[in-house]
């Protein structure tokens, strides 16, 4: 697409985006507060696009976005697909089960094949932490991390931040409690980076067996210069939730019980479920969030998930706008 054509395709309300210079979006840890703000502002414009009668702009017309998913995902993949299509891109979905991955093709072979097919953007979900970094090092494609192992899920964190900001405005001094399987959660990690970068107070809460090294009691992060987000840890949910502005529940994988990490689902529910009584300890207008998919009745009580305080469905809606913003900035925002 020629530059002037791209200029015309730009959503009218999106300003010039000189601050965006990144080739890839791999995690929130690399973003400055200004860059996060830019994603937020761009997402506002995309929300406006999505509210139109024909919710489309041709900003990515002629570009191909490949969704390469090595792990089953319904909502993230669909969200990226809708985002890319709303920007006029062609979308190819590759699920690892159906591809040559099963024939022993290496990740890099697959990535190079996608590149050779003429794609510009690779949206990648992988069960192994760091896989998108490997791809990004060995390709000219723009790589968007759509979730890697226990490591990062930057677009989820950005849509969470976007959702919180729409309700609470400035994040400085706001208390966000993230509850559950912190050790294995890419959502918790990415949110910890993004929220603390914008000045929020982040409290991670879970049983010690679901807290990672360095955050678990008895383990130390005292190791010279530690490059970690400044979070607090509280294992008692009743204390953690006290005065919270945002309460975010994480999905509990049922296989954790088999590993001897948790005694029983019943006990977990008793100690760590976000229910009405617990939520009453938070601020009266506290937001309830969940990255999905939910185990209702496990990490979150159904009446809480459906309460007026819940913004869980709005998270899903905002996800499309935020992912549009990310795709736009990576490909067109620098034009």
């Amino acid at each position, binding site marked *: 697409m020629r530059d002037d054509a791209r200029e015309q395709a730009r959503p009218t309300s999106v300003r010039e985006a000189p601050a965006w210079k990144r080739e890839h979006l*791999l995690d929130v840890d690399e973003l400055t507060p200004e860059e996060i703000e830019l994603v937020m502002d761009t997402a506002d414009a995309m929300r406006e696009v999505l509210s139109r009668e024909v919710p489309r702009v041709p900003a990515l017309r002629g570009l191909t976005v490949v969704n390469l998913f090595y792990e089953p995902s319904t909502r993230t993949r669909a969200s990226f697909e809708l985002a890319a299509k709303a920007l006029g891109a062609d979308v190819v979905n590759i699920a690892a089960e159906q591809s040559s991955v099963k024939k022993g093709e*290496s990740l890099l072979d697959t990535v190079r094949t996608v590149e050779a097919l003429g794609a510009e953007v690779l949206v990648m979900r992988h069960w192994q932490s760091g896989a998108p970094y490997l791809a990004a090092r060995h390709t000219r494609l723009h790589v968007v991390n759509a979730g890697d192992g226990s490591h*990062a899920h930057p677009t989820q964190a950005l849509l969470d931040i976007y959702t919180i900001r729409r309700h609470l405005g400035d994040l400085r001094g706001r208390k966000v409690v993230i509850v559950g399987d912190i050790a294995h959660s890419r959502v918790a990690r990415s949110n910890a980076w993004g929220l603390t970068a914008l000045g929020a107070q982040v409290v991670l809460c879970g049983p010690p067996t679901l807290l*990672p090294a360095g955050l678990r009691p008895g383990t130390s992060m005292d190791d010279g210069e530690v490059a970690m987000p400044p979070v607090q840890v509280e294992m008692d949910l009743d204390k953690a939730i006290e005065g919270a502005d945002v309460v975010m529940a994480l999905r509990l994988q049922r296989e954790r019980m088999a590993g001897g990490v948790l005694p029983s689902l019943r006990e977990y529910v008793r100690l760590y479920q976000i229910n009405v009584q617990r939520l009453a300890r938070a601020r009266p207008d506290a937001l309830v969030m969940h990255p999905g998919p939910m185990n209702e009745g496990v990490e979150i009580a159904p009446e809480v998930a459906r309460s007026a305080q819940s913004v869980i469905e709005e998270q899903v809606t905002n996800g499309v706008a935020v992912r549009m913003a990310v795709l736009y900035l990576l490909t067109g925002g620098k034009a």
Partner: protein
Amino acid sequence: MTSLAVRGGRVLDPSRGVDLVGDVLIVDGRIAAVGPDAGRDAGEAVDASGLLVLPGLVDVHCHLREPGLEHKETIESGTLAAARGGFTTVCCMPNTEPPLDTPAMVRWVRGRAEQVAHVRVLPIACTTRERKGRELADLAELAEAGAVAFSDDGDPVADPALLRHALEYASVLGLPVIEHCEDKLLSAGGVMHEGWVATRLGLRGIPAAAEESAVARALTLAAETGGHLHVAHVSTAGAVALVEAYRARGAPVTAEVTPHHLCLTHEAVMGSGESPGGLAYDTNAKVNPPLRTRADVAACRDGLSRGVIDCIATDHAPHAVEDKLCEFDLAAFGISGLETALALCLSLVHEGRLHLMRLAEAMTIGPVRALGLDRHVPGLGTLAVGAPGDVTVVDLQQEWTVEPERFASKGKNTPLAGRRLRGRVVCTIYGGRKVWQE
């Protein structure tokens, strides 16, 4: 009569505390004289003025991969890497395919080494049949075939009763059992040290306790049986403390540490920040035991300085490119270390953290005494008259950049690529013959 003199260098022989400026004369493959002007009339000479002259370095822990894994390394390529790194003796681990669990396999390696090796190869044989940890290998016959120690390296003997029997049996043979101490139930699925870096990267951790509990168990068995236990690649502060406690009680225990555990931390997995997103997930820093914390590194250095740890061993673990160019979880464990070992350890000397004489000791007579190798090769690791004519000449000040693509080893897997190091092996003499000269 052939003679070779290394002239005018600073000669260190830690076995006898020798530190003098002079010559080393080698006649017919053996050390003939050491001292000022000792090499005046030699047929051939190496000018070592301004250079350091050491007994040939000894590595008691390396993987030469032959037979069976020749795409990663061969006895020929691995021993050329050794020569370039200043090593004239290497003990190779038995986790080949097939493993060195029969006398025939041990003899095969020795025979192959006689044909193609650039330096001396002393094979280590399996502790258990097929390295499966179920029944003892034929230890006495393996010893007769020339094995210098026993180890199931990488797959530690999980059954404590079997490890106990191995120590008992090996004690009669006078050979050590080398244990890679790791409780595989504690480390299961782990790919790097369990600490804040693993937390940040979302990678499964290997806790220090996986090593320390296995070290403690092996130490108690050694103390009880009197069998010589050599603890491979100590990597945690707790493991150093355990070894020290049991040594103080007189247990027959020796230990080694690798250059990477002396010089690198788990932060190496994150990398330098120049990769996309700032995180490297550097598979070349994936090694077992994993790179640990700064406190662990400090404890390993301290243990080495004070003699709690006997020696430095490379755990040279070469891999093919595709073994490392993949997702971190899938990548092979190991660092190709023979060609960087001395220079990396010299960084500790340059920083004033380790005495040069102690470093030299830990790479020459230290490993020889630890495993009792002089029983197999009298005089090994020394410059005593009659000892093997193995000499390493080092330029302490020469700076160089680690370029894995120029390694003699087939294994280009090092987290040190691009790093500037000071101190370089300029000449390696094995049995009176120059096997490497810059």
